[in-house]
């Protein structure tokens, strides 16, 4: 663990975003995770995405559960709201927070243990309800904090550091998210920021349940030969279906790709995603097709990455429930308690 604080000095030529912040302004405390942990790269990618989107830190709520992954919100967005919940309960707390104040950007940060084991049900229901959030699973396939037991996402047949073979079937969170109706589903790799940063940025811009499964090698317990979540294995078996650029803000859209290879997806917040196809047959608007594609490639041992499914016209939980648009904490007393005349009228409508 690093004992010193990260020096305050930054590169004098660092660019600033629209708010006048550098990416350093989106950092949190120095990481206490093992040196080389993939989670730290995801942290850096979240920082980069928020910087690029010029997000005001006070507009973000980062919510996590328990585990190495769930510690990471301490390491980014040091000026944002945060809630470190009980194990596996991040989705419920996030859902509650989102219902109380829909104006914030919700970042749910979880791990494979937190989301695929103890919090599997919570995960499923928050996706199923279409909570407007960016749900990131930092997926390393092991329980790192308890020294490397297989987690529920570890592939059948993969080996632990001690050489034990995993005999259980793996839960593919991407497949589950697709099946449960997530309206933005992606998979990426902590060691590939050029893919991961725009995915996070696009997910933040998506109104609805966004889910990103990020393979993140556990340097201490799951980066050996026989692991299917190691740097080497993921690099060898990574099958990216597309690459994307997120176009936001004042910058004019200037996409200089060959025609037909780029698909522009417009999001609710006005941002645009330019998708560069790598696999010509892949259609990210076809949920069923995505599920089949995923299953077919998984059978071949390939790790499909990229933006796998997006529904640009998605609705979220607030639309389903027809809730009030104002955050509850800013509703005035006369709105919350409109008086007996209003109550009488309401009661009359039910008679």
């Amino acid at each position, binding site marked *: 663990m*690093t004992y010193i*604080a990260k*020096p305050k000095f930054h590169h*004098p030529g660092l660019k600033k975003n629209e708010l006048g912040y550098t990416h350093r302004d989106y950092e949190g405390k120095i*990481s206490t995770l093992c040196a080389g*942990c993939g989670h730290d790269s995801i942290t850096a990618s979240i920082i980069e995405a928020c910087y690029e989107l010029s997000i005001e830190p006070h507009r973000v709520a980062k919510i996590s559960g328990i585990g190495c992954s769930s510690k990471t919100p301490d390491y980014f967005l040091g000026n944002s709201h945060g809630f470190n919940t009980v194990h596996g309960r991040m989705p419920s707390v996030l859902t509650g927070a989102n219902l109380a104040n829909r104006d914030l950007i919700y970042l749910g940060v979880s791990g494979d243990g937190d989301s695929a084991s103890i919090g599997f049900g919570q995960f499923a229901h928050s996706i199923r309800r279409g909570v407007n959030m960016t749900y990131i699973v930092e997926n390393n396939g092991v329980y790192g904090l308890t020294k490397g037991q297989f987690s529920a996402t570890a592939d059948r047949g993969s080996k632990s550091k001690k050489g034990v073979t995993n005999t259980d079937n793996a839960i593919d969170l991407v497949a589950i998210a697709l099946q449960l109706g997530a309206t933005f589903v992606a998979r990426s790799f902590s060691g590939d920021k050029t893919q991961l940063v725009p995915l996070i940025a696009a997910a933040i811009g998506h109104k609805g349940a966004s889910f990103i499964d990020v393979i993140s*090698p556990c340097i201490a317990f799951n980066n050996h030969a026989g692991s299917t979540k190691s*740097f*080497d294995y993921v690099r060898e078996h990574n099958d990216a279906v597309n690459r994307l650029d997120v176009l936001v803000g004042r910058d004019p859209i200037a996409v200089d790709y060959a025609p037909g290879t780029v698909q522009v997806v417009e999001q609710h917040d006005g941002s645009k995603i330019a998708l560069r196809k790598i696999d010509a047959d892949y259609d990210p608007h076809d949920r069923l097709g995505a599920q089949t594609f995923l299953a077919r490639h998984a059978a071949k041992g390939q790790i499909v990455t990229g933006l796998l499914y997006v529904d640009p016209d998605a609705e979220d939980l607030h639309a389903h429930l027809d809730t009030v648009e104002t955050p509850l904490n800013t509703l005035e007393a006369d709105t919350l308690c409109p008086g007996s005349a209003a109550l009488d009228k309401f009661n009359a409508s039910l008679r």
Partner: protein
Amino acid sequence: MKPTDIAAPDYFHKVVDCQWACPAHTPVPEYIRLIAQGRYSDAYMINWKSNVFPGILGRTCDRPCEPACRRGRVEETPVAICRLKRVAADFKDDITLRLPRPSAKNGKRVAFVGGGPASLTVARDLAPLGYHCTVFDGDPQAGGMMRTQIPKFRLPNSVIDEETGYILNLGVDFKGGHRIESMKALLAEKYDAIFVGSGAPRGRELDIPGRKEAAANVHIGIDWLSSVSFGHTDKIGKRVIVLGGGNTAMDCCRTARRLGGEEVKVVVRSGFEEMKASPWEKEDALHEDIPILNFLVPVAFVHDNGKLTGITFQKVKAEYDSKGRRNLVPSGEPDQTIECDDVLVAVGQENAFPWIEQDCGIEFDKWHMPKVDPKTFVSTNPKVFFGGDAAFGPKNIIWAVAQGHDAALSIHKLLSGEDITERPLPEVHVSSQKMGIHEWSYDNDISNDKRYKVPHRDKVIALKDIRTEVELGYDVKLALGEAERCLNCDVQTVFSTSLCIECDACVDICPMDCITFTENGEEADLRQHLKAPSLHPDQDLYVSSDLKTGRVMVKDEDVCLHCGLCAERCPTGAWDMQKYLIEMTHAGSACPTKSRSAA
């Protein structure tokens, strides 16, 4: 780009900007760390070995290291390297036992013309090797311009006595009050080698109307300063004008303030910014209520029947031609006359060698300067060497020291029958600083402190006595604070390609965004693809060989804080923090050959 050859001694030497910029290549971070540890004597000895006059230079150096200091690229101000050197001198214990002993003579005799910093450096290097060194100087005491031209309120005699004493006690024969008047006569005395370190002793004249008539009140700056130094001059008129914008002018005006000058003004031809004087010397003058008037060219001394009454100046302005060269052209405003009682002319210094006869085998160039080899410092007479101001015109003490070391090496090689053009490589000691998983044997926590000011004596007291030192120097606490600002640039980030698993941990943690993993390319192209823009192309890129993914690691050395976080966050030890202690090879040291390893 090709992978960086970190075994080349210059590569990491350049990263230690201060040491690279220092003409004598003093290992600055090494001595600053020792100061932080309270090991003042050790810090002093590192300086003494490298720059010979730590106490003197710690007060007077022109500090080429400070503008180079990496800290100045990271925040506003560099580390106060010069004044930390003084701290080592101020707080050291008695170091005489650590000095070399006078050794048995080897029978070779070397004569020195002038007893200033250049000569004394050569003598310091040669005397312990057994050479019989005889130093001739016209003045009664050793030190040269350090003693005669630098005012005592900046550099007390006690410091000069101490540090010249260390050298003379090595068995050097000092002949004070013995001015060499003839090179021919000196050559006839059959010395094995002669070193000329006679400085640039002549102050430049200002030949404008009225100069002769007003001569009684027009003084040449350096002559006047040495006259003050020896106590021959102890007063000056109330209204004094100092002409010139260099450090000598600053010494003149501040000296005049202490000898009765109440209205002392410095007048310069150029703009204030372009003045040659060091910024801190200008500051000190301004602090002593001495205005600096710029863009005024003196055209005539005004006098009343031979009694100086003032100087007439033409007003000028700066114009730049298409090549960016500056010309001072009349501004068209009427001339200005400034009244005064005395004038100090400090418009430059010149070399003068009237004592070197034409048939000594020493050739001179068209500027009447001796033809001297810039590496070996030998003249066209293979036994006669030049160094310091005498070799290449007026510079600073630290240059004289650096040239002295090189000349001493040449003389030693010559008298050992070796080829003087073959120069030894520096000595490099490499040691990993890793102590534990995240522990280093240097303090890698970066201080956010701003530069500490050196306490000054109260102006009223300081101006009363010309021998009262103005700067009080850092106390131990301030010195520690300032020492902590040093970024330890000699503790290098060393990268092992074979260990890297490309996990990005170093990229993510680096506070300065120095590290980039990217496709290789030409340097200009790579500089376009760095994580943070490349601001100083003169700062090297450290490039690895090809990694597993086919990419390379590129580190822009420019603003690296040497905080070691890349190495702390590296899971495989691909980054290590290794101290590169680089020391110049002086006369008599074992000469490292090219085959010796640097990494």
